[in-house]
């Protein structure tokens, strides 16, 4: 693995070396290392599509799986299907992410379709980071799709982060929750230049006691554009909360279109949305502490997205 590939791995998976536990590293469409453990089995798919199946046994407690993807070739496009089978009662941390470095003229594109089958009482923490760099004119495109099916009383916490670099992204997340299941999503996005990011969340709260908490924080700078779509369907005695908070700068454009659908009289659904520029008094306060206006802006954004 060369320096560039190591840098990308650092960015998306905080990996400095081969990780402990189970992992699968995918580099320019090929496997670049894989390890299964007694509790976590990783296999190539058998249906001919690119990607892997990850089986997490019910015995798993506090183990991690790293499945980073690295692309350093220009004009390279792939669609990868990863399926996670999480057995009842498992407790696992999954770290996925995609790093693209494109110094060519053509577009490089990664579309990851992740499907989670989460068993009863299982706990999953899923961390996903997207990062792209490059000194050519070629675009970096990532379109992650996450499909989450949660059985009774399971819990999933998803952290998804995309800071700069990605020119175009359509991020689709679907969740279907059985009784007592809980889904927490934290999204952070920073776009600049002429980038475009579209987020599309939809969550079906099917069972009694199901709950979802979806919070998106984003910063849109320069002439970038963001679209945020969200829909929570409450089909029983459930609670759903969503929040979309965006800082808009320069000539950027942010559209937020939340929807709540209560299909049961017992559904409790809340949405909060705020889009606005950095408040002048926030800049002033930090300037009275000795920061320049630009430093103040950086600190406010860093805090907002941390």
């Amino acid at each position, binding site marked *: 693995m060369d320096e560039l590939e190591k840098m990308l791995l650092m960015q998306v998976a905080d990996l400095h070396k081969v990780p402990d536990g189970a992992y699968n590293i995918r580099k320019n469409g090929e496997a670049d290392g894989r390890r299964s453990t007694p509790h976590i089995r990783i296999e190539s798919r058998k249906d001919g599509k690119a990607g892997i199946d990850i089986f997490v046994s019910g015995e798993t407690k506090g183990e991690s799986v790293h499945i980073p993807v690295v692309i350093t070739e220009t004009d390279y496009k792939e669609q990868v299907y990863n399926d996670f089978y999480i057995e009842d009662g498992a407790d696992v941390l999954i770290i996925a992410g995609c790093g693209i470095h494109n110094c060519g003229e053509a577009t490089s594109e990664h579309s990851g379709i992740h499907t989670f089958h989460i068993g009863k009482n299982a706990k999953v923490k899923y961390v996903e980071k997207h990062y792209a760099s490059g000194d050519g004119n070629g675009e970096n495109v990532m379109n992650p799709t996450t499909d989450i099916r949660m059985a009774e009383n399971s819990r999933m916490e998803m952290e998804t982060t995309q800071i700069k670099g990605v020119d175009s992204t359509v991020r689709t997340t679907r969740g279907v929750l059985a009784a007592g299941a809980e889904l927490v999503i934290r999204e952070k996005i920073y776009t600049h230049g002429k980038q475009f990011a579209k987020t599309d969340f939809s969550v079906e709260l099917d069972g009694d006691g199901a709950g979802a908490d979806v919070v998106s924080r984003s910063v849109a700078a320069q002439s970038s554009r963001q679209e945020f779509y969200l829909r929570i369907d409450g089909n029983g005695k459930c609670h759903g909360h969503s929040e979309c908070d965006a800082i808009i700068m320069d000539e950027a454009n942010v559209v937020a279109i939340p929807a709540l659908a209560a299909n049961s009289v017992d559904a409790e659904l809340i949405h909060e949305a705020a889009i606005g520029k950095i408040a002048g008094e926030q800049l002033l*306060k*930090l*300037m*009275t*502490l*000795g920061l*320049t*206006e630009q430093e103040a802006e950086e*600190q406010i954004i860093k805090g*907002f997205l941390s």
Partner: protein
Amino acid sequence: MLELQHISFVAADGDTNKEILDDVSFRVEEPFVAITGPNGSGKSTLAKIIAGILTPSEGRILLDGEDITALSVTDRARRGISYAFQQPVRFKGLTVKDLVSLAAGKRLTVSEVCSYLSEVGLCARDYIDREVNASLSGGELKRIEIATVLAREKRLTVFDEPEAGIDLWSFQSLITVFEKMHERTKGNILIISHQERILNIADRIIVIANGKVQKNGSREEVLPGLLASRACPVLAK
């Protein structure tokens, strides 16, 4: 030492111009100088002019002899002016530790942040990782605001109504904060206040009314008159 020379400030009020400050001159030489006066007399405007947030229409501001009238907020802060806001600012995402560290100009250790928070009467452990956002009460925000200027330890600190919103925390604690601050910085503290107990520790009291300096003298000279006029509403007019 801070010196204001012939400061005037005119604000646009619809189609007309309104004179907020008119030829205000004074010096801040003693450790504690208080500015008092009726609401709307221009006191907060004066504090903002000293911090560089507002630019005076006329006049000069000198800090230890250097003319800082044309300097930005940032440059004045770097020259040693601290300013505690009357209405503290909320930040989504920045933690108390982040804000106090930014004020100190370096990454502080947990125990350093804790010591500043304890000085303003906050149990540090409960606050250090809290976001400086709407989840904090007005009184908590105000104390964190005071902690940020404490952490700066500069030669001139301006407090704009530090007692406002201080809730259950006592004035005596606030006064202890000022005294400790002076011990450390050996600088000047300029306090805008209506509170008799704060005026009681001032070495000098300046009374501003209708944008002008009405009185400027030692506490002994000014305070008795102030208290007498407050006791009698007819005289106060």
